């Protein structure tokens, strides 16, 4: 299925948390400030309902999204008050894929874990948690995965400041 078909199917089965869709488009020739949008089409999903959404995508026989190809986060800008959660779903049997985007506020970056639906989300969520400071409620193993256990701060946040020293080693 192409993106339009997937989106129609999601609406037909009333997938929980589906908030809308966004597709790339050409720049408007009349409006010079409009630069259009590049990249993949994606669906916008409520972060609180992301696990339920993933479960519906996995269990529906037409969608059959059985693989989480990517699960990560983005900090779009320093003055933006939201973080993005980016998920790439892939269906090996149906040979189609779907990009999902969720918004969660930086001030209260808490969302439920997707591990009960896809166990492969475990390491992805641990990485997103340590890099962006997102709390995944109900995660079975919420340790750091790449950084040392006592690392301070969330390095991929745009407002991150480098530490002066770590365990006596100067960072400057």
């Amino acid at each position, binding site marked *: 299925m192409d993106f339009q078909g997937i989106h129609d199917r999601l609406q037909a089965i009333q997938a929980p948390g589906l908030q809308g869709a966004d597709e790339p488009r050409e720049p408007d020739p009349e409006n010079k400030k409009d630069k259009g949008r590049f990249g993949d089409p994606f669906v916008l999903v409520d972060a609180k309902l992301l696990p339920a959404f993933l479960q519906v995508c996995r269990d529906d026989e037409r969608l059959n999204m059985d693989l989480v190809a990517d699960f990560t986060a983005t900090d779009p800008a320093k003055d933006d008050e939201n973080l993005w959660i980016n998920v790439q779903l892939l269906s090996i049997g149906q040979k189609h894929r779907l990009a999902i985007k969720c918004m969660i506020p930086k001030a209260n970056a808490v969302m439920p874990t997707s591990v009960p639906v896809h166990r492969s989300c475990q390491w992805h969520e641990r990485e997103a948690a340590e890099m962006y400071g997102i709390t995944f409620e109900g995660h079975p193993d919420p340790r750091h995965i790449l*950084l*040392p256990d006592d690392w301070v701060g969330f*390095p991929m946040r745009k407002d991150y400041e*480098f530490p002066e020293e*770590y*365990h006596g*080693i100067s960072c400057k």
Partner: protein
Amino acid sequence: MGFLEKQFQENVLTTKVDWLLNWCRLSSIWPMTFGLACCAIEMMAVGCAHHDIDRFGAGAFRASPRQADLMIVAGTVNFKMAERIKRLYDQMPSPKYVIAMGACATGGGPYYKFGYTVVKGVDRVVPVDVYVAGCPPRPEALLEGLMKLQEKIQNSSVIRRPARTA
């Protein structure tokens, strides 16, 4: 060697203790099997037949720091690894030598500005004898670094000179 020459029977050689010890050391520098990033690939190439670090007696890569004389820090050192490097260095028996291979181990390299977990040079953790430039260095560059280290060993002395007093 000087007036001792031809004073003994055949098959007796005379030399200096310094020269003999240094010759032994520099001819059998056993490096530690230890690679951190892409520089390690070049280090492996140095160990293979084409470049053949064994020509310098340094081909016996030891899997244990307790059997090694030389630590080739080949790659990016991050803070998580730096503590392990320090511990491995402490486990090596003296005399021990360190080669910082490549830009990352020398001074942070391309991660100098934005690498939040990269140590800006392994010399902040362990003392370094020879720095090899390059990103990654060619195998020939590492061999030259090894030869520089051999020169350094050759010029060292086992006799400890008394500490200079003011």
